[in-house]
């Protein structure tokens, strides 16, 4: 049980420590792409 908990904690920590910049840049890009598509769809309507 303890081994499983450690593994989950490790995985959660890993989300923040593994390529944090790549995650941040991709999030910014995702928001920009979404806003752009939203605007384009609005213009098309």
């Amino acid at each position, binding site marked *: 049980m303890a081994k499983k908990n450690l593994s989950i904690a490790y995985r959660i920590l890993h989300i923040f420590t*593994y390529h944090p910049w790549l995650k941040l840049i*991709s999030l910014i890009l*995702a*928001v920009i*792409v*979404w806003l*752009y598509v939203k605007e384009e769809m609005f213009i098309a309507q």
Partner: protein
Amino acid sequence: MNSTAIFIHWKAIVEILILWFVLYQVMLFFEGTRAIQVVRGIALILVAFFFFQKFGLERLDWLFRNFFATSVIALLIIFHPEIRQGLARLGQRNLFVSAMDEEELDQMLKEICKAADSLSGYKIGALIALEMHDPLSGYVESGVLIDSKVSSELIQAIFTPNNPLHDGGMIIQRGRIASAGALFPLVQRLDIDRIFGTRHRAALGLSEETDAVVITVSEERQDISLIYQGKLYANLNHENLFLKAKEIIQAGK
């Protein structure tokens, strides 16, 4: 806020999260290869393009719109080997790594680290690739098939000079030594330090084309290195090698 507005916001968050996941996977996929510079460039152009539109800079917007459309064709031509490799890798995922439990993984890594340590002490070079998700079957076939349990003694015996299999790489698949004397692709990058010989270049080449964890032992410098996704972790000792390899393999599950 009525229920329709909440539903729309909920959908927007889901859409952004899916977009984020896809973009992150694309960037992660190209990380460590020379194509990551292109991905970064495209990201920068997209950000600039968005701001030009937002602030109504019509001429710059027009310029970027036309420039971007034509540059995509040029990028496809220049980076066609990377794109081809990438598309080939997309359909070749396997999940064997998760089939090994932590105890088996520890045992396998201990044997490899022990062998690397001994080989380094005797000034004997070695090249060992551990298959992760991308299948190494094509490279396995270029060597001599072994299919044996991973043991420190066997690894040392294979890399001992004058052994017919000592030249080339060893591939470990599904926790077993699949083959030895295998040929790995050499890295194409020119920014590699000249102190690294063919063994390290082969290790870097394989790590750029696949997600394999590659361990090298230098016969001249007695240096143990771990190479993963084009990144080289040099001067590792027995313990550091174990921890680094375990961290990467567990993270990749």
